[in-house]
């Protein structure tokens, strides 16, 4: 049993990301339990040297992990798994910040006098790191429906790999998603733009900029031969998938490109048809999957 941090969007717009991930984890022998009384991590990390208040929120979540151990709910388990790339980034950086600045940790602990003090024991992991620890060979053995013939392009985005203190893989040439997809039997297509920013929060006030970035990232993936793109972040998903509508406003010839969460493909490969969530994607991937003979039986 490992504590798991969902983040606001995984409980709402991206709930199928969570559902597929939890089932996939269970299939691999790991029970992810939701952190009790968690609060929004407050993405994106505050970067000024003097700001402490914006680190309160993620630290409060890390304290919850320590509390779970103190209360006996879990035994000696200080890992916290996050599924959303942005939540992972913020939680990990908050931990690193206070570890490097004990004076700040003391101030923040004093501010949160109603909580127990943060002891610094928590180790924040992204779900992909957990999968890597479980081992890609084991994942391969769990596959019931190999994704043969499906040409997938991994998209990492920014916050999983940068800056170096949080990186789960090499920032310039990551391979973790490729290894995962190969274990699932898919054909991995490299996209040179796989680590290029999708525009992130600019989607709130500068849709045009996001649309251009999406156009570049997806067009290049298609040029390299990809049929679909996978991601690990609800904001990347929104920018790459939902914003394709805005892409077509400037580039009417742009063909829809399915974008999926990596856990959806894992669920498909493991035969967990009821949690694939393909009916929730902004760009429907089902025609593509049907073409490849990879359709699910039943609703999703």
């Amino acid at each position: 049993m490992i504590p798991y941090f969902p983040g606001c969007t995984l409980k709402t717009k991206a709930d199928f990301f969570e559902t597929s991930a939890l089932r996939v984890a269970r299939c691999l022998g790991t029970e992810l339990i939701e952190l009790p009384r968690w609060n929004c991590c407050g993405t994106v990390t505050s970067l000024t040297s003097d700001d402490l208040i914006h680190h309160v929120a993620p630290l409060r979540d890390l304290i919850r992990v320590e509390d779970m151990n103190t209360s006996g709910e879990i035994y000696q388990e200080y890992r916290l798994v996050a599924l959303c790339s942005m939540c992972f980034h913020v939680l990990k950086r908050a931990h690193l910040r206070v570890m490097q600045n004990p004076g700040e940790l003391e101030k923040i602990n004093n501010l949160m006098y109603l909580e127990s003090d943060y002891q610094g024991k928590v180790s924040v992991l992204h779900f992909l790191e957990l999968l890597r620890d479980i081992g890609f060979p084991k994942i391969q053995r769990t596959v019931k429906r190999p994704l043969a013939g499906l040409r997938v392009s991994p998209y990492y985005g920014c916050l999983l790999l940068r800056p170096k203190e949080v990186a789960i893989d090499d920032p310039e040439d990551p391979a973790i998603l490729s290894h995962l997809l190969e274990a699932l039997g898919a054909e991995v297509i490299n996209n040179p733009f796989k680590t290029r920013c999708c525009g992130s929060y600019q989607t709130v006030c500068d849709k045009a900029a996001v649309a251009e970035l999406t156009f570049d990232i997806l067009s290049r993936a298609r040029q390299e031969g990809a049929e679909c793109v996978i991601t690990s972040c609800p904001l990347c998903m929104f920018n790459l998938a939902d914003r394709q509508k805005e892409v077509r406003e400037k580039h009417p010839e742009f063909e829809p490109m399915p974008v999926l969460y990596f856990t959806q493909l894992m669920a498909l490969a493991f035969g967990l048809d009821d949690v694939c969530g393909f009916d929730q994607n902004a760009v429907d991937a089902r025609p593509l999957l049907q073409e490849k003979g990879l359709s699910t039986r039943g609703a999703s």
Partner: protein
Amino acid sequence: MKKKKIDVMERVREASKAVITGVDDKDIEHWVDIHIMGKAYQVPADLTIMQAIEYAGYRLMRSCGCRAGFCGACSTIFRRKGEYKLQGAMACQTRVEDGMMLVQIPFSPAEKPLYDIREEKYESSVLLKYFPDVARCVSCNTCTKSCPQNLQVMDYVQAALKGDFRGIAEGSFECIQCGLCAIRCPAEIVQYHMAQFARRMYGRHGSPRDKNVESRVGEIEKGKFNDEFDRVMGLSEAELKDVYTKQQNTREVY
């Protein structure tokens, strides 16, 4: 005969006077020193903040309501002597303390958005649609610390980000809308307006329907109780009093 216009607040004030002036000052043993809006006063120790303000000679036109801890009008913030923490309380429910420095906040400025709960979709995005300020929450817990009802305010604001209508409804159930959370919030969120919207949405779309209530309302609309209504409306004042007293004296509990 024309009815005399009754100033209800005047009568309430008269009724409270007994507490403040029923005893001679020389007979009061325990006094405390407090500061009301920066001015020092000595008041009897067992008064509530509201009574103390009136004892000091103020006549409350605002920041005063039910005097029973329910309406949320008498929001007060104070500091205790020697302490740095800012406390929030309802003046009618809190006793004065020696060294207390207080001020009242009669009103918390906030615009309530107009919505029609019949027309809104029961999903998480509707909360941010009307209350985008909720996205600014930094989980500092200042709202919880300010709440005179001891509600877990931060938890229900976080429930809004999670789209958990029930969590908001249950967490904010005892909110009296005093406004102290909104006044102190560094992210300038108006917690209680958002909670009220969420409670309304939950009540309409989320909570289980009460079949007994629905069937009784149906019976009323069909006229099942019309005869009984007519009978009661036709009773004289003396007969009504008689019926009421008899009913109060029975053991039946409604």
